[in-house]
């Protein structure tokens, strides 16, 4: 069991090291482009490189090899008011100036970076865009992977006598499941915690796997999925729904008719308003926390790698020294990011469990007593 976990840790460390080689290559290509494109300005646009990496893109770019981009074309799915559904590959729009039908990628303005078309009056409008972008593809692949992993573990328990010992992947999942159930769900929710364990386990494994996939630089990983606000929004929204749809009577009474002097709630519902805002800020904090942590992690790794290229023109000695510093710090941050991947998944799950627990306070109990857990 231990040996297997060690293997997995080793695998991640290795992939992190690989990430450096890969990111370096990618950056080198980006920077090379920057230099050829803007001969007169030797400034390297680190910000744009990082932003484009942590953002989304229509194709899955690997690197630039001898002036040729190597990338996986991804399907673009659009619904335009004028031409209806349009499905084509992103390779059609690879060059910044190319067009497919009337669609092209806007270079500036409100819709910069998105596929747009021109309406009859000549204004740029964005069609309804549900393209399988880099993040979406990574998301779908990771979801399939997660389903495969968990279902295979479930199959193990279905097929085998549950009294037999488990090892390997099953053992690993089992440890995490036991941890979430015993250390997160049980103490935070209290009785009837079993109702919520499937939900908590799903969000934990979903966030964890997406975080970890984001740390793997090569193809199925590397996308900044959990560092995307749309993804964390849906996760937080799910928690919001679970919390508020399973709340107890006391929970709703506390929101709409809390124990405060009547003038605070009677003609003008000041306290109820605050309470309602409170129910929204809780999942909102979850959303921002996960998004910010993962995005920051990706940015730091990219920024450290950029140091190598930014210092390239400062001479061999400086560049060499800075390269060493960047690599050492990069390894440190990479390892930290593995920890963060676990911690963020854990915090999201723990706080969801705590919010569920708070919403299920039985009559007569003050929620302050439970709130201290937070």
């Amino acid at each position, binding site marked *: 069991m231990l040996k297997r976990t060690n293997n997995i840790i080793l695998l991640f460390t290795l992939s992190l090291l690989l990430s450096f080689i890969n990111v370096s290559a990618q950056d080198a290509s980006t920077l090379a482009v920057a230099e050829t494109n803007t001969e007169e300005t030797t400034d390297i646009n680190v910000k744009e490189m990082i932003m484009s990496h942590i953002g989304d893109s229509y194709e899955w770019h690997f690197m630039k090899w001898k002036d040729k981009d190597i990338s996986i074309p991804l399907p673009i799915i659009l619904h335009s008011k004028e031409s209806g559904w349009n499905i084509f590959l992103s390779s059609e729009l690879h060059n910044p100036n190319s067009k497919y039908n009337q669609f092209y990628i806007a270079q500036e303005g409100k819709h*910069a*970076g998105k596929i747009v078309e021109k309406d009859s009056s000549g204004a740029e409008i964005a069609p309804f865009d549900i393209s399988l972008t880099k993040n979406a593809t990574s998301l779908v692949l990771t979801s399939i992977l997660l389903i495969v992993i*968990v*279902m295979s573990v479930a199959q193990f328990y279905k097929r085998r006598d549950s009294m037999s010992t488990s090892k390997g992947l099953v053992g690993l999942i089992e440890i995490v499941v036991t941890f979430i159930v015993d250390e997160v769900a049980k103490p935070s929710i209290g009785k009837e915690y079993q109702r919520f364990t499937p*939900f908590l*386990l799903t969000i934990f494994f979903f966030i964890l796997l997406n975080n970890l996939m984001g740390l793997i630089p090569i193809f199925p990983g590397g996308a900044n999925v959990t560092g995307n606000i749309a993804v964390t*929004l849906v996760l937080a929204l799910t928690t919001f729904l679970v919390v508020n749809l399973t709340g107890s009577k006391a929970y709703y009474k506390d929101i709409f008719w809390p124990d405060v002097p009547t003038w605070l709630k009677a003609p003008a519902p000041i306290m109820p308003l605050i309470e309602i805002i409170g129910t929204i800020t809780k999942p909102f904090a979850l959303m921002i926390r996960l998004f910010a942590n993962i995005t920051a992690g990706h940015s730091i790794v990219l920024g450290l790698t950029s140091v190598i290229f930014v210092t390239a023109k400062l001479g061999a000695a400086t560049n060499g020294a800075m390269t060493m510093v960047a690599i050492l710090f990069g390894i440190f941050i990479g390892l930290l990011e593995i920890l963060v991947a676990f911690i963020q998944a854990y915090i999201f799950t723990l706080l969801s469990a705590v919010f569920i627990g708070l919403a299920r306070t039985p009559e007569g109990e003050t929620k302050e007593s439970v709130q201290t857990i937070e």
Partner: protein
Amino acid sequence: MSSSLLTPDTGLLFWMLISFGAVLFILSKFGFPIITKALDKRKKYIDESILAAEMAYKKLEEVKTDSEKIIASAKDEHAHIIKTATQRRDIILEKAKEEAAKEAKHIVEVARKQINQEKEAALSDMRREIALLSVDIAEKVLRKNLKEKDEQMDMISRLVDEINLS
């Protein structure tokens, strides 16, 4: 796509809703309940096994103390039996000795009596024998003395005298 990082993108939102919805549905319906149930079952099984083992251990201890008790009582019994046996043996021995002494005494007495009787018999036999012998002797003496006629007459007269006298 360098639009603001904080603006959720509709396309990704759509795919996230679909994929996370699918994951949540499948895993919370067919995945995790099986795992948690199996883990619960195993936990229960382990708890029960530990309890059963504890009970068995307790029972074993009980049996041990019981057997020790039985052994102790058997030892006691054993000692008691030996003690009573020795006592009885001593009594029997004593009795036997006593009886033997009595018997011996009796035998000696009977023997003495018999000896006495036999002695008496022998003595009376001897006496009779001696009387017969003396009569014989007297006869013989008489016969010798009364060979002559006058002597016989003397004798008769003497005897008559004697009878008369008496």
